[in-house]
């Protein structure tokens, strides 16, 4: 029983991190209809920039947590202005391919500059070690990462539900044309929302730096899990991304506990089942005919 509890808590801890990582993907899809394949590469950039800031400028974790998302917001704005914007009117597949190409460029560029072995990064002071709750042990950093993720998800949720900006973003997400016809310049919100989504990817990267290998390829496998998360949750659904993030974390943990070899396959089986039963995902809107 205590083993089960241990796996459950570990799954929840991982799930919080998945939720945060998938959040930006959901926000960008929701408002722009863009499936941003480069989300994994932006996550990688977030981690690599943290490591470079630490190694070359001695800028630590807590500062990186603020600075890196700001840098990545700028990167997202450039990306939207220079590239993504021009393909928005076309089939979504074009932007999917664009961001896929961008991913290859970013990954290769980081490999050229920093090699493939990865960059060092340490757990920030005060967040090392473990805590024991009864017979259950959890790493302090994993708890921190999970709580931090939940706080960010809740903050983004409040931003979306309780503010006028959030109302406009939700309306634009649901029906961009109609929202324009109600006097709102939807286009003006597109760039900052894209930047915000990329900033969230960067933030997840900073959070990953102390606990994962910082390599050019670190996003390549991760993006696939994130796709599974947003497909399960329902593309474009913020709540869906968060719930599915925790769900995937739990499924993965139980998978590892009881069928380790199939731990990742289980996630995709879950995705396939959800898509079969509810094609628009758990929290996706069913389209009105």
């Amino acid at each position, binding site marked *: 029983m205590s083993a089960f509890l241990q796996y459950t808590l570990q799954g929840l801890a991982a799930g919080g991190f998945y939720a945060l990582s998938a959040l930006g993907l959901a926000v960008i899809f929701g408002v722009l209809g863009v499936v941003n394949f480069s989300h994994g590469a932006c996550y990688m950039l977030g981690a690599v920039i943290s490591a470079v800031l630490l190694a070359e400028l001695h800028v630590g974790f807590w500062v990186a947590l603020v600075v890196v998302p700001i840098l990545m917001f700028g990167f997202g704005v450039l990306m939207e202005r220079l590239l993504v914007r021009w393909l928005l009117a076309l089939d979504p597949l074009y932007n999917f391919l664009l961001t896929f190409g961008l991913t290859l460029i970013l990954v290769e560029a980081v490999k050229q500059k920093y090699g493939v072995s990865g960059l060092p990064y340490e757990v920030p002071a005060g967040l090392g070690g473990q805590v024991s709750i009864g017979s259950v042990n959890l790493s302090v950093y994993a708890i921190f990462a999970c709580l931090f993720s939940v706080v960010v998800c809740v903050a983004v949720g409040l931003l979306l539900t309780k503010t006028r900006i959030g109302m406009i973003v939700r309306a634009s997400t649901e029906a961009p044309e*109609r*929202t*324009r016809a*109600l006097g709102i310049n939807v286009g003006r919100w597109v760039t900052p929302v894209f930047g915000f989504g990329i900033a969230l990817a960067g933030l997840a990267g900073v959070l990953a730096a102390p606990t994962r290998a910082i390599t050019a390829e670190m996003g390549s496998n991760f993006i696939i899990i994130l796709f599974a998360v947003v497909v399960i949750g329902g593309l474009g659904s913020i709540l869906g991304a968060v719930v599915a993030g925790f769900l995937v974390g739990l499924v993965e943990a139980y998978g590892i506990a009881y069928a380790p070899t199939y731990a990742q396959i289980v996630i995709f089986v879950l995705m396939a089942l959800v898509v079969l039963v509810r094609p628009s995902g758990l929290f996706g809107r069913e389209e009105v005919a």
Partner: protein
Amino acid sequence: MSDETTTTERTGAAAETPAAQGSSRMLEVTGLSAWYGEARVLTDVAIDVAPGEVVTLVGRNGAGKTTLLRSVMGLHRQIEGTISLDGTDLTRRSADARARAGIGWVPDDRGIYASLTVAENLLLPPVVHADAWPLERVYEFFPVLHERRDFPGTKLSGGEQQMLAMARVLRMGSRLLLLDEPSEGLAPVIVQRIGEIIREIKGQGVGVLLVEQNVKFASTVADRHYLLAQGKVVEHLGNDDFRARESELLTYLGM
């Protein structure tokens, strides 16, 4: 070819008769043609709406009524011709700029946001005119919206959604409402209520361009009627003429 010529002439002649409401035309559409790719769906359409006037577009499915509304709103862009409001040319303006200039859009699916509450649906659009209804007045006029203000918009009944869609553009202060089939699929008692609302709006000097298949309902609220067929205005009638020829028109429209 000859058929077209006579149609145009008849329209041209009729256009002069009922519109004698002075120079105060609010919406003025001239020479409007619209395409979907290669297919032409509107040909040289000219219509106008004055303040406080209710004007309907009547015609069979596919006659081009909704395309005309969407062109006026700026949602359909593949057009020629001019669209102006209160003398300002809006033809090159985006949909959101036209909305801020005073055009209010009430689409045929009501256009209620599922992810917004009733109150948020009302508060979403910016206030664009001093005559905009304050929220209190909206709630006073539509008590049911006040009751359900915290519900998701799409939890309302069809009639309530229609009222919400209309209330939304009134709160915004639109000067010209584009109503696309407001009576569609609603119970007679609700349709009657919508008629009352339209008359209330009219009394405030707001113009209404109404797409309607329900000829009976149209004749109870409108001042003038444009008949559309195959993308052209084929008849332009005052409401009295319209009533007198109601059964003929019903047959003509295949309704």
